[in-house]
């Protein structure tokens, strides 16, 4: 007996925005934390890693979605890895062509995008089940959310760790940089602080919603 075909949900703005805030890969899903902690010691490194990840995420999701009815499920993970590795190799060459300095600064983390669980996760959980357009839109949202998180971490770490932002001096020369912020522990500290703040905002929003609903309920009852 053939399985019932599920009707695909329509493309809405939510598909795009979910990855940016509601299902942010770093702050909500906690995916791909290795580059998040490793390369966010400056805004420019964060931006470059974010853009590279967006490129790999969008292209691999598009190709996986295109081939989704053709790939037998027994070899799907192997196929996804080949596709992702291909786009990572492309982005690796492109960054070398754009700036050798940036390429040297990002080190092995460009190649390590292959094993970023965010990218394989989106290929398996979303692109393999949805149309090309929806997969690309979702990948764009997720990629932007990932980049936003990287820049939020990179901004704070560069500002406090070097007194600069995008290489421009922000604090006066009397400011003693908090070197720990651009070292690995700084990544954990700043990520923890951002998670604390975001969860606090979310909790307040939920509490406000519950209060409003309760007030509405009691008004309707009376």
């Amino acid at each position, binding site marked *: *007996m053939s399985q019932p075909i599920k009707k695909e949900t329509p493309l809405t703005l939510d598909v795009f925005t979910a990855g940016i805030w509601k299902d942010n890969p770093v702050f909500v899903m906690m995916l791909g934390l290795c580059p998040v902690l490793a390369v966010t*010691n*400056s805004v420019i490194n964060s931006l470059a890693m974010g853009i590279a990840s967006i490129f790999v995420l969008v292209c691999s999701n598009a*190709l996986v979605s295109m*081939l989704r009815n*053709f*790939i*037998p499920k*027994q*070899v799907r993970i*192997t*196929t996804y890895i*080949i*596709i992702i*590795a*291909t*786009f990572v*190799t*492309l982005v690796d*060459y*492109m960054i*070398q*062509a754009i*700036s*050798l*300095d940036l390429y*040297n*600064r990002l*080190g*092995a983390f460009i190649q390590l995008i292959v094993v970023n669980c965010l990218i394989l996760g989106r290929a398996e959980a979303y692109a393999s089940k949805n149309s090309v357009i929806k997969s690309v839109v979702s990948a764009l949202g997720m990629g932007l959310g990932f980049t936003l998180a990287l820049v939020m971490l990179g901004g704070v770490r560069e500002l406090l*760790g*070097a007194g600069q932002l995008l290489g421009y001096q922000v604090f006066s020369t009397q400011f003693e*940089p908090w*070197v720990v912020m*651009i*070292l690995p522990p700084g990544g954990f500290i700043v990520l923890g602080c951002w998670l604390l703040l975001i969860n606090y905002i979310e909790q307040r929003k939920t509490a406000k919603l519950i209060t409003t609903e309760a007030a509405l309920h009691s008004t309707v009852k009376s």
Partner: protein
Amino acid sequence: MSTPENQVPELPSSTKLITTLGLVAMISGLLVVLVYEFTKPIIAENQRLATERAIFKVLPKATSRLTFKVTATGIALSDDKANGPLIYAGYDDQLNLVGVALNAAAQGYQDTIKLLYGYQPSTGCITGFDVLKSTETPGFGTKITSDEDFLANFNCLEAKVNTTQMTLMQVIKTVRHGTKTQAWEIDAISGSTITSNAIGRMLNQSGQRLHPIVMQNLNRLEKGKE
């Protein structure tokens, strides 16, 4: 009798699996080759520019340069793409040799550090360096390019050649911060000992190998293009 619930799903044929993987690998290969071919000349040009910038930084008096490769019998004019150790000779406006730039590399704290350093055969001094590749810890290992006390080591780091034994007269080594007493010692940066030691090690290795070759072929280097 089997029920639909306990039926094992039929496996696709091996041919289908192999075809799928083969096709995906072909698309992948095609994309990689296309981008590689497109970016190859740009990357090569970027590397040439980076090397050129580094050479003129470590040999500030040079206005032109030539590349020599080390051969079994001495040195020969070459291009930057040649394999093996290269000697970049810098010349001033009158085409006098002002120094040579040499490569050095050693394992640092995180990864291999690669640099280009300037050597003056006339004085036997290492006069400066430029980092080509480094992923050292920001704020610590990266101080090798900004710490004034550390950079002062390279006003003239002695690396003279013993012409009879064809080795360096003295082993270049890094010493603990504040304990430098000799001209061939490098005063380490406090808190960046591993990176400082790597610099000493790589300069010694490169010096032991290349400085005797430079001295043996000094006439050829001074002649330039002739």
